[in-house]
C-alpha cells in the first residue's frame, strides 16, 4: 500500500489577518487533500509565539489579509520571525500570501504620511499607500513561466473547463511595484492588480507567491490550489500526481465570477 502523504500547513497570524474571507483558502487546501486521503495538519502561529514554533518543518505557509490596525500589530511581530520564514522559503517551502500578508513580505511599505515601514523582503517589491482604493473583481492570466507547471500539476475530471487564469476580488489602497528581477504572478485581464498601472499582478519568488486575490482565491481556482498542494508535497515526496477530483462546480463558480464582473 502506498504511503499516506502528510501536508503540514502554517497559517500565519490567522487570528488577525482574517478579514476578507481568506480562511476559504485553508478550507480549500484542507478539503482537496482530505478528499484524496492526504493527511493535513494545520498550525496557527501568531503574535508572541516563540521562534521555535517556526523551526517545525512546514510544507506550506498561508498569510492572509487584514485591517490596517491588525497589519500594524502583525508587522512588528513578523520582524522577529523573519529569519526562519526566509530560510523556509529559500529551502523551497510553498507560501501563499494575499493582500496585507503579501505587502508585509515585501521590502517596505510607504504610508500616507510618507513613513517607510520595512517589510521582511521575501519579495523584491514595495508598496505605497494611495488615496484611492481598488475594489473590483480581478482576473489574471497566469505568468507563462508558471502556467506549464500549474497545468501539469492540476488533476481534475474537467480538464475541458481548464483556463490558465485566476479570478478573485481585490480590495486594497496600497499600490505595489515589483523591483528588478521580480516576476509577477500574472497579467491583469480585468481589474487593477499590483498598482493599476503596469498590468502586473502579484509576485513570485521561488515557491512563494503573493497576490491581491481574495474571493476566496483557491476554492474557485482549483488549478492553483492543486498546484500549491503538489509543490508542497513534492518537496518531501518527490514527483507527485494528485488523484482526480470532480471540479465542475469549482469551474462553474470561476466562470460565473468572470461573467458577472
Amino acid at each position, binding site marked *: 500500500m502506498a504511503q499516506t502523504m502528510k501536508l503540514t500547513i502554517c497559517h500565519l497570524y490567522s487570528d488577525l489577518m482574517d478579514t476578507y474571507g481568506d480562511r476559504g483558502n485553508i478550507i480549500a487546501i484542507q478539503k482537496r487533500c482530505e478528499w484524496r486521503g492526504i493527511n493535513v495538519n494545520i498550525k496557527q502561529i501568531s503574535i508572541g509565539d516563540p521562534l521555535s514554533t517556526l523551526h517545525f518543518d512546514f510544507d506550506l505557509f498561508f498569510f492572509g489579509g487584514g*485591517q490596517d490596525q491588525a497589519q500594524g500589530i502583525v508587522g512588528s511581530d513578523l520582524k522577529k520571525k523573519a529569519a526562519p520564514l526566509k530560510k523556509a522559503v529559500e529551502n523551497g517551502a510553498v507560501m501563499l500570501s494575499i493582500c496585507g500578508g503579501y505587502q508585509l513580505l515585501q521590502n517596505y511599505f510607504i504610508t500616507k504620511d510618507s513613513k517607510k515601514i520595512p517589510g521582511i523582503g521575501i519579495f523584491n517589491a514595495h508598496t505605497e499607500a494611495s488615496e484611492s482604493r481598488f475594489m473590483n473583481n480581478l482576473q489574471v492570466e497566469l505568468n507563462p513561466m508558471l502556467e506549464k507547471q500549474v497545468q501539469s500539476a492540476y488533476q481534475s475530471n474537467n480538464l475541458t473547463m481548464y483556463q490558465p487564469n485566476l479570478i478573485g*476580488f481585490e480590495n486594497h489602497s496600497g499600490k505595489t511595484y515589483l523591483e528588478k528581477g521580480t516576476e509577477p504572478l500574472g497579467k491583469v485581464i480585468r481589474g487593477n492588480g499590483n498598482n493599476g498601472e503596469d498590468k502586473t499582478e502579484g509576485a513570485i519568488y521561488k515557491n512563494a507567491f503573493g497576490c491581491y486575490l481574495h474571493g*476566496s482565491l483557491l476554492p474557485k481556482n482549483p488549478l492553483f490550489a492543486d498546484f500549491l498542494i503538489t509543490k508542497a508535497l513534492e518537496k518531501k515526496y518527490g514527483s507527485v500526481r494528485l488523484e482526480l477530483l470532480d471540479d465542475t*462546480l469549482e469551474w462553474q463558480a470561476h466562470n*460565473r465570477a468572470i461573467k458577472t464582473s
Partner: protein
Amino acid sequence: MDLKLTLAISTGKIISFLNKLSGSGATAAPGLYALKIDPDLVKKLSSNNNLKSIVVSGTNGKTTTSRLIFEIIKSKQKIIHNRAGSNLLRGVASTLINNSSILGKVNADIAIWEADEAALLPISKDIKIDTLVLLNLFRDQLDRYGEIDTTRKKWIEVVTNLPKTSMLILNSDDPSTNYLAKFTKAKKIFFGVEADKINLPQIENVADVKYCINCSAKLIYQTLYSAHLGKYSCPNCDFGRTTPKIKATNLTFNHNFSTAATITFNDHQLTTDYNLPGLYNVYNVLAATSVATTYKVEDDQIKKAVNSFSAVFGRFQKATLNGCQITTFLIKNPAGANEVIRTIAIRPNLNILAILNDNIADGRDVSWIWDTNWEAFKGAQINVSGTRAHDLALRLKYAGIETKNVDVDIKSALATSTNSKSLIILPTYTAMLELQNYQGGGESKWHKQ
C-alpha cells in the same frame, strides 16, 4: 420666507407625489433632488422645528431597533421615522419633506432616524441628536464601507461632537461601541447581556476585535457570546467591558423562533416573551428598552410593545406561497449571517433556499461567505440561487453539504424550493427585494437608494 428651502420642499413633494402615482418606491429620490436645491434642508427643518432626534446606527439591527423604539414610545410622542426609506442623508430629507408643510413646518415632536453607519457622521452634522444608539460594529461589505477601523474613527468624531445634554446609548458587550464612551461629554447608558452561556449552537465565528483598541494587547474574554461580543477585559490597560445598566438575563431561544428574556434596569424587572429570534434580537430589544427608559415610558408599555412586536420587513418575515410556509431572514455580513445560522440550526428538518447576489447594495465582493459557518447546516436540504449561486454552492460543498438545486434565477428557484411544507429563505439585500415581488410583500421597494 426661505425661498430656496420652499423650492426644495416643493420639488421634493412633487417627486414624492409622482412616485406615489407611478407606484415607484424610490423613497430617497425626493430628498436627493431637494438636497441639490438646498443642501441645508435637513439642518433647517430640524432646527426651525426644534425637532429632537433619536438616531440608531450599527452594522446589524438598525431597522428592527428603530421599529421597536417607535412602537414603544409612539403613545407618548408625535413621531416621524424613516421607516420606509433610505437611511442616508437623502432618506432623512425625504422623510422630513413628506412631513413638512411647503413653508417648512414639521408636525412632530421627535424624529427616529435609522442611520447607515457610514452616513452617521454627515447626518449628525445636520440634526440635533437627543439620543444616539450605537448597536455594534462588524465587518460588512468591505467594498462599500472599507475597514471597520475607518467606521469607528467616524463614530469617534460623532460622539465627540455630542452636546452634554444628549444621551449616548452603547452596547457594552461590543468593545468597538464600548470604547466610544471615553470620547463623549454626553450622558451614557450601557446595555448588555448577562449570561454564562448562550443556549444556541456554538459556531466558529469571526471576531473583528481581538486586540485592545486602546493599547493593542490581546483582549481576554471571560465569556464570548458571538463574534467579538461578550465579557472582555484588557490585561495591559484599563479598557474593558462596562457593566451594563440595562441587561438581559435568563435567555431562552425557542424552536418556533420566539424568545424569552428578563430585562433588568435600576430596580425594574421585565419578563418578556416576544416573537423575534436569536441573540442578535436580544440586543435590539435591550437598545430599544434603553431608549424607552430615557423617555420615561412605563414598564407595562415597554413590555406590551416588545411582546406584541411583529417582524420587520425581510428580517424575520413570514409568508405562505403554494401552501408552503416561508420564513425569511436577511443575511448580509458574516456576523449577522452566523447569528442567523445558529438561530435556525436549532430546528429539525430544515429546508433552505439561500440566495447570494453581488449587486452594489449587496456588496460586489462575495468572499464573506467563507467567513460564515455554513457547516452548522449539515444534514439540511439546501437550494441556492442568485447571481453568485455557484459561489455559494461551492462554499457549501467545502462545508460538506451537497446542494440540491443551483439556479441563478430567483423566481424559478423559489418555485422549486416551495415544493415542501416549510421553507427558510436566506437572501442577501437585493435578493430580498426581488423576493417581495413573488411573495406579495407590501413594502417591496424599501430602502431603495
